């Protein structure tokens, strides 16, 4: 199954809403339950929010993926912002450098099935997450 690929430019808080709505719509189209679609939309909201707070602008890419025997959704949040100096620290609950709750990344990891982050100081951050349909 393929529902193509959607890219949402993230430049303002308004784009956070649009990214998570598109993510929910794609998840439903891929056959996710509405509960799982809510988890996916919430994860997208947090990832897009990180882009706005730390990098000001970036992109969210949404894509349906086919595993060996299952269907899933891939979400890639990328920016060319300041990057994360200490990824291990950023993945700990309660850590934040922008005065926010600091629950973003560990929370997103709990909401999704797979989580990958790459970041280089001054070059930017890419977070790729996947969720598989039950």
């Amino acid at each position, binding site marked *: 199954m393929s529902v193509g690929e959607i890219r949402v430019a993230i430049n303002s808080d308004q784009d956070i809403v649009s990214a998570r709505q598109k993510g929910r719509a794609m998840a439903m189209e891929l056959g996710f339950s509405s509960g799982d679609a809510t988890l996916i939309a919430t994860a997208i909201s947090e990832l897009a929010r990180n882009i706005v707070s730390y990098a000001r602008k970036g992109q969210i890419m949404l894509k349906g993926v086919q595993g060996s025997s299952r269907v899933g959704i891939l979400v890639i949040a990328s920016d060319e912002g300041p990057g994360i100096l200490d990824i291990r620290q950023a993945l700990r609950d309660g850590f934040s450098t922008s005065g926010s*709750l600091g629950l973003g990344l560990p929370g997103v990891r709990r909401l999704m099935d797979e989580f990958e982050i790459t970041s280089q100081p001054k070059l930017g951050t890419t977070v790729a997450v996947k969720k598989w349909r039950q």
Partner: protein
Amino acid sequence: MEVPILKQGAVLIATFQAALSDADLNQLRMGLVQQVVKFRSRAVIVDVTAMDVMDSFASRTLREIAHMIKLRGAETVIVGIQPEVAFAMVQLGLTLEGVATALDLEEGLAYLNEKFKTTN
């Protein structure tokens, strides 16, 4: 998108729409606190039934609203958190500690009536 705030006696009722941006939420926070002062309201009910996602910013804003209203000596009740939204909030580690919640608008009003009765 603006959030309609309804005045019902001593209670203000704010009904959230599905697609609130951070700017909308900030505006609502200011609007609610100002109206509580203006109308000398005793309570605020925030109805989030239509909200599809409650992320870290939205739940922090709700907590802030509740704390500000409390400093004015009034009560806040959050009503209508959908089951899947509640599930996502718990997974994300978000809490609404110290903020009263109720199933829906009706239960929220009943909770406040009971509360006012005992304090009068």
